[in-house]
């Protein structure tokens, strides 16, 4: 399992609005790639294409190839459920289910069952259901990986809403990790959190990059500067510049990028 993403000629329309214009981008495995840009530039639209979440929006039309491990996920024959299992997503506002903490994380693995010795990629691996013990272990593993275990281990049966905002967001991350994805997508994960919670999540992101490919959309440029290896700058649906974070923040090649980064756009 590679975990790299290759986007070619991606175009997205919302009715007549051309939201993303011919985007070509390669995301490397085990790296954090940040997507920055002003409001309405298409960065959320872009990241939602990566796990086909734009399919739920009725007015949306997506064209182009998005290859994950060589397979085009936009292909009609591709199983959307499988795509979303392999590519997890964490949203802007923490959205745990109104269930207990344990149930929040156990829900998805129970749904998907366990993969038999993998018979390859795509649809096909047979699924058996987990035993209770396996589920409990999986929940513990997920919470540890999301740096939340110590804080919740003695209240696993309490409602997820009793947690603070930062904890809820980490719970959502644990929930996404529980199905063992290869790629994790984060859509402005810290915008609703205070600075301390934000710092914890950023540390978590850097830790996650060892095992997963991480793509993060952020409107906070400093966050992108702090955690990302590579950064892509979008403006009005176009990919303006994409390169190493250091280079983008010290010597951007495009004038638009420079304007945006130094805060002199608009």
């Amino acid at each position, binding site marked *: 399992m590679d975990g790299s993403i290759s986007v070619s000629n991606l175009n997205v329309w919302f009715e007549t609005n051309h939201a993303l214009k011919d985007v070509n981008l390669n995301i490397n495995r085990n790296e954090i790639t940040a997507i920055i840009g002003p409001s309405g530039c298409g960065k959320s639209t872009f990241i939602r294409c990566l796990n086909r979440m734009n399919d739920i929006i009725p007015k949306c039309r997506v064209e182009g190839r998005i290859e994950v491990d060589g397979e085009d996920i936009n292909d009609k024959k591709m199983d959307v459920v499988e795509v979303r299992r392999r590519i997890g997503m964490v949203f802007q506002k923490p959205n745990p289910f109104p269930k207990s903490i344990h149930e929040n994380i156990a829900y998805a693995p129970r749904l998907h069952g366990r993969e038999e010795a993998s018979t390859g990629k795509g649809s096909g691996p047979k699924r058996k259901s987990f035993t209770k013990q396996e589920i409990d272990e999986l929940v513990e593993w997920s919470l540890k990986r999301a740096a939340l275990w110590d804080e919740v281990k003695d209240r696993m049966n309490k409602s997820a809403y009793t947690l603070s905002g930062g904890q809820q967001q980490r719970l959502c991350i644990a929930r996404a990790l529980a199905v063992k994805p290869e790629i994790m997508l984060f859509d402005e994960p810290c915008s609703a959190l205070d600075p301390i919670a934000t710092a914890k999540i950023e540390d978590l992101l850097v830790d996650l990059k060892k095992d997963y490919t991480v793509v993060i959309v952020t409107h906070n440029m400093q966050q992108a500067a702090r955690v990302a290896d590579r950064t892509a700058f979008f403006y009005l649906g176009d990919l303006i510049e994409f390169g190493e974070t250091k280079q983008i923040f*010290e010597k951007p090649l495009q004038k638009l990028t420079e304007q945006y*980064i130094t805060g*002199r756009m608009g």
Partner: protein
Amino acid sequence: MTSRLVFQNELDKLNEEVASMAGLAVQAIETAVMCIVDKDARWKPEVERLDKEIYSLEQVIEKHCLDVIALHTPVASDLRTVSTCMKIITDLNRIGRYASDIVESYEVLAASNGFSRMVSIEHMAELVVGMVNDATQSFIKRDAESARELFQRDDEVDCLYDTTFRAVVTYMIEDPRKITAGTHIILVSRYLERIADHACNIGERVWYMVMGERLNPKDRKKDRESCNIDVQKEPVHYGSSHELEEK
């Protein structure tokens, strides 16, 4: 369309402060040279005063730079500008210091009987003041090209220094009574040569600020071989022959 007005104001103020510090530095060495060459004692306290002012200005500007970095997190060209300012003020401070060092030799040189070495000092000083002026201008105008040219003129200054050094040593060997004065002349020309180096540093920083990359090392190489001036012969570009004579 302007945004980040506060930040922009801070940057403009920073530029003005550095420019005024550079102006003071230029003033300092001009005054120092006048003091030494024209043997006018009035200028000495002036130079010392300027040096103190330059020193305190360096501290103010450094703090200002740190404030901008802490509060406004500049990136890209803004970051290069601020880091350049921080480095340039060090060079300007050294220039002020050297100016002050130069006028310390005033008493000795004034007492000596008209050492005509002064002419080469004057010439060197003219070049060096020009270089510092041009370095300052290149910073204010953000002109990278003129910054690069400074290195060639630095070679010239180095040559002059070498020449002066050898000539004065020769005369010190011939007449031991001239040792004190001669040493001070060497010191003064050394200071001038160091000032020229600092002006080149400023130019290098300006190049980085504008272009975003370091200057090519080849441009910095000093070509000392071209400075083949025989100490016995008269240096052609100095014009009159009687400058090597003693009074």
